[in-house]
């Protein structure tokens, strides 16, 4: 186990380095810069800015100093939000995004697996058809379609929830973003659980339990535990999808999280903030995949360590 973890972490470092390198040169190769305003700055001011931010040095030296700073955990200053370092911006934005994402994932696991198990326990009934059809709609509908439709329904017609805004995390403001983030994952988890559960119910183990004369409820409980195993390995992709979804959701609902910064920073040529966001997302995906893999070994003894 320790070897697996060490090896995975050892792999994570070159992966992260690759990400940093590709995104650094990609950004710098593009035309435009963070200080190109609509009205050009005074050349002297521009020269000073370039010197302070070390843009006058050769690109490879800028790259080396960026990587060196990064190795010490320093993301550098934001080029757009002067007076703020990238770390300070993330310190405010990350808890918001993480809170939304974790809640959405938890909702997806609880609601999705319950719906999937329910459908599987009554396979081919009308209820099963409803769950399956809803799930395939949920998987298909893009979040940028769901979000405005929900804003329209709950915010403008029923007037029960605010259309957008964060309001320092007031619960009402978080309901719609979480639902939009969670919806496709709820659907995916429901489909996955249903399929796994039907398979588990048809397995010899379930037949044996039934032969013992155990009540249906007990057989279902056993099958449900078996069905949760494939679910665990889906959590990695699900977390990645939630992070991607947060870009849309945070933009649409005006939530000051990392996802919204990402697009804004790219549009403003805020090199350090974009880089920081990419590194943050990549690290999160790597860590989550590692946790999922380790958890998998604990949950399913049939999985070998390598």
């Amino acid at each position, binding site marked *: 186990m320790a070897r697996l973890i060490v090896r995975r972490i050892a792999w994570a470092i070159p*992966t992260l380095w690759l990400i940093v390198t590709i995104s650094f040169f*990609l950004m710098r190769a593009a035309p435009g810069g963070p200080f190109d305003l609509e009205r050009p700055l005074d050349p002297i001011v521009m020269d000073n800015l370039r010197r302070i931010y070390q843009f006058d040095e050769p690109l490879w030296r800028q790259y080396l100093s960026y990587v060196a700073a990064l190795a010490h955990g320093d993301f550098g200053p934001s080029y757009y939000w002067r007076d703020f370092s990238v770390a300070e911006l993330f310190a405010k934005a990350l808890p918001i995004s993480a809170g939304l994402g974790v809640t959405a994932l938890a909702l997806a696991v609880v609601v999705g697996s319950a719906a999937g198990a329910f459908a599987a326990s009554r396979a081919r009934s009308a209820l099963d058809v409803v769950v399956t059809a809803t799930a395939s709609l949920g998987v298909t509908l893009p979040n*940028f*379609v769901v979000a405005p439709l929900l804003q329209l329904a709950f915010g*403008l017609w029923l007037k029960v929830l605010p259309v957008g805004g964060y309001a320092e995390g007031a619960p009402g403001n978080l309901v719609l973003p979480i639902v939009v983030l969670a919806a496709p994952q709820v659907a995916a988890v429901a489909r996955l659980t249903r399929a796994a559960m039907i398979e588990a119910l048809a397995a010899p183990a379930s037949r044996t339990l039934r032969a013992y004369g155990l009540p249906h409820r007990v057989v279902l409980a056993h099958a449900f535990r078996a069905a949760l195993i494939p679910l665990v390995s889906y959590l990695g992709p699900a977390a990645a999808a939630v992070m991607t979804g947060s870009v849309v959701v945070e933009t*649409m609902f005006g939530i000051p999280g990392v996802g919204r910064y990402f697009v804004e920073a790219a549009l403003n040529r805020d090199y350090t903030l974009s880089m920081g966001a990419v590194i943050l997302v990549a690290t999160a*995906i790597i860590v989550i995949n590692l946790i999922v893999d380790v958890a998998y070994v604990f949950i399913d003894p049939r999985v070998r360590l390598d």
Partner: protein
Amino acid sequence: MIEARRTVALASPWRRVGARFSRNLPAMVSAAALLAVALFCILGPSLSSTSYDAIFPDYVGASPSLWPHPSEAEARTALEGIARRLRARLVQVAFDGAEARVTLQASRPIDERGLAYFERSDAFGPAQVEERRDDGRTLVVAAPLRLTWMPAGADANGRDLFTRMMIAGRISLAVGVLGCTVALFIGVGYGAVSGYAGGRIDMAMMRIVDVLYALPFIFFVILLMVFFGRHFVLIFVAIGAVEWLDMARIVRGQTLSLKRQEFVAAAEALGVSPMAILVRHIAPNLLGTIAAFLALLTPRVILLESFLSFLGLGVQEPLTSLGVLVADGARHIEDAPWLLFFPAALLTLILYALNFLGDGLRDALDPRER
């Protein structure tokens, strides 16, 4: 009975695939729906009465209606505007079929050159003077109505949403096809070479794929689009470059199992070069798997494009895509919800149908997968 069994036994693999597919009702319905959407998007714009970028200032924000514009109220508003410009009063307005008959009156003789305002409005064609009275202080003018159909309403710039949806659907389908083609070539080439080479090469190539999997690719595509402008070509190159990874894995797995088959060994024994074995013997056997996977990849590619367009990073105005239209609709949900409903419905229909079609194709091509 015996006759029937013989036909099945003699049917070619592809015919059996066709038979299995045609028994799958949702997949057949989806195929028909997609065909309809494709015809709508490809032929529609040339049949439509308006162009996707034609602007009708008189109909800004017009709601969906099966009747052509201008309605009587719209025509009256347009006439009032024209009369104001001619410094005249509307005395009498009568509509008969496709023509409006207007009596204008002013304190001074009306300058007839000003009748060009009729043609300049969106509601009327060139106007004719039918009668002059009081030394030209009163004019009776006949102007044909210029009929425009906007069944899905008009957007905030007064452009016909129906035609714009056709163009958007066209872009989406084109991106689906082209993006998949890019993914197909990279993925199949990479996967087949990796699987067929085996050993260290295979391991190194698959390690690279593993590393690429860890990259937050959507974020890269966003960076790419932001920093390198919004070329139409770049969109599907970027999307294809992102989506080839799964294809490479699947093709590699299939190639690994195929190359242990006797016919490959036979070809090798006959001295056929590795490249020729790949092209002549391995690739055709991969066809079914690839086709099934492509059908499921297409909706993902279309979704990714509309996602980028939604963020404002995809195709640029006046060209449009379903993502752009949905984003536009989301901005006007309060005053013009149809701007959201229609494009969202078309996008959902395309994605839904493609998913069912893909599932059906996979079941038909690869019955073991079920």
